[in-house]
């Protein structure tokens, strides 16, 4: 769920904090011998065999997932190769790659893809650095730490729709606090400036909201990662006279790098796929300046009824993002291979 999840993926963070305990990195490694005691011998070589009673525990969740999640996903991928439309009486036909060749020539799609990239990077990158700084700050003994933690709940637990509404009130040309504050320090536009409908400011304005909305979640995840940092190593480096920056480079960063990479990659995906926040803030306006791919796909599917085309768009989004992330992660992880093994 960043939301749509916002909420999406927050479970991951919480589980990291509570379930996996202080060492998420090692939590996955089975204790030697444990698997044998639990009858792993029987299961070796048959990945799908689970002994008596286990299937009965798995099926209640597995069936709905297969029927209402995996199934629709496969169905959706199939729809991308058809001319399915809503409310049409004729039978849906298989059209092969037609939707994709249309997509290639659809300048509106490429515009939205570009907006999506700028938005996703514009939110993810500053969010990451702010959250990292904040996590380092909150790792210190500071007096107002509890307040920061308490306030962090607000963006995290708030419906995205409300976040959007709230920031519309902040950005409001007349009744908004932003213009009034700028005016009071002498920077103000004389006329009430409408940040969300100005072609020059709209994308920046929604990016600020995106950063605000996802920062607490990112901060908490990075804080959990900071617990991996070996304290003795830190102290030893300090004794050797290493300054704060050197200690960060040589001790802290290597320890949190895996968490940092995962968090920024996931945030990028979620931001790229986000919908509700920008739908409420600008509905893609002005003139498509903030029309994220999801907003475009939603319009195609549920305003114009172009199901097949919208499904193709969804598939293209997955493919393009997968390629981008593969490049990013393979370049980032290359230097790490030796340390891990």
């Amino acid at each position, binding site marked *: *769920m960043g939301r749509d999840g916002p*909420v*999406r993926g*927050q479970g*991951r963070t*919480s*589980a*990291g*904090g*509570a*379930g996996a305990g202080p060492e998420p990195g090692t939590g996955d490694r089975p204790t030697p011998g444990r698997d044998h*005691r*639990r009858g792993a011998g029987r299961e070796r070589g048959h*990945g*799908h065999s689970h002994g008596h*009673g286990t299937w009965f*525990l798995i099926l*209640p*969740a597995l069936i*709905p*997932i297969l029927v209402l*999640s995996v*199934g629709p*996903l496969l*169905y*959706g*991928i199939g*729809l991308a190769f058809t001319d*399915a439309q809503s409310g049409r009486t004729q039978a849906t036909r298989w059209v092969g790659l037609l939707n994709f060749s249309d997509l290639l020539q659809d300048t509106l799609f490429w515009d939205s893809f570009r907006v999506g990239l700028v938005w996703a990077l514009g939110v993810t990158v500053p969010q990451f650095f702010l959250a990292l700084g*904040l996590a380092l*700050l909150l790792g*210190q003994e500071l007096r*107002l730490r509890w307040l*920061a933690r308490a*306030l*962090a709940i*607000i963006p995290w*637990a*708030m*419906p995205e*729709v*409300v976040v959007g509404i709230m920031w519309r*009130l*902040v950005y409001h040309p*007349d*009744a908004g*606090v932003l213009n009034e504050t700028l005016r009071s320090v002498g920077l103000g536009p004389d006329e*009430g400036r409408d940040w969300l409908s100005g072609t020059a400011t709209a994308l920046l304005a929604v990016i600020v909201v995106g950063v605000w909305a996802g920062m607490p979640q990112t901060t908490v995840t990075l804080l959990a990662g900071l617990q991996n940092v070996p304290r003795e190593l830190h102290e030893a480096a300090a004794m050797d006279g290493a300054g704060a920056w050197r200690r960060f480079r040589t001790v802290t960063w290597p320890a949190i790098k895996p968490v940092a990479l995962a968090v920024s990659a*996931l945030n990028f*995906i979620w931001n790229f*796929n986000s*919908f*509700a926040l920008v739908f*409420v803030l600008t509905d893609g306006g002005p003139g498509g300046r903030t029309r994220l791919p999801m907003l475009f796909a*939603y319009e195609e*599917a549920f305003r114009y009824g172009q*199901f097949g085309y919208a*499904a193709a768009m*969804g*598939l293209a989004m997955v493919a393009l993002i997968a390629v981008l992330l593969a490049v990013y992660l393979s370049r980032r992880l290359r230097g790490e291979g030796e340390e891990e093994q």
Partner: protein
Amino acid sequence: MTRKSPAALRDPATRRSLGRAGQYLALLCYLAFLAFPFLWLVSTAFKPPRELGSIHPTWIPRAPTLDNFRTAFDEQPLLQAAGNSLLAAAVSALVAIVLATPMAYVLARRRTRFARAATGWVVVSQAFPLVLVIIPLFLVLKALHLVDARTGLVLVYVVWSLPFALWMLTGYVRAVPPELEEAAAVDGAGRLRILVSVTGPLLMPGIVATGLFAFITAWNEFFFALVLLKSPEKQTMPVVLTHFLGAEGVADLGPLAAAALLATLPGLVLFAVIQRRITGGMLAGAVKH
């Protein structure tokens, strides 16, 4: 406090206190950034129309009023929307944890290829854009006459919250040491008895936290509700909130703020509760006894 002469800067104690001051300054900036939109929402919700129309808005309403809340309930069926949201969120959260808990137990305790594949799926499923899932779901639910029906939305919410419920619960199960279960087995307890009387109670805080989390997620959800529910009397809170925005973004700001504030409260309260459960380390405490 300290004079910033170069000599003083070389003094480690001075440098440390300057560093401290910088840290507090950064923290205060962050707190302000975090709090100000919310404070503005609260302020707007209590302002009378006269003050909302003024060109120089103020932080503290001069004549605070509850009228906006009254108007909000008059303008849109907020109570009904809250009821719909409550129903969808409570039922889907309950069903999701009932379905997910047994599977999470197996995934946590048995490290088979299937468990790895399932965990991988949980991660990957979060990365797909929702259009790719909602169009086929829409068609399937339509064939079942479950579009524009609360049941259809609940079904979608159950499946949608299963992945992260599985993820969270798997983490909680791993935090229960298998040694406890083995000790009970040595004492002669049967498998079911171990699950019910040893593992179950230790998992309870995690199950409650997961359930509340699923509840908040569904309460806040917007996209599926927007697509699946058309009749105003069936719509959930977030969808009804967008009706306050009106055409061309012309909004009645006071009632909009009031309704938005009300929609936030359950999530904020419940989330505050789970946060405490998580940080309280109830599991760690229980294991030590």
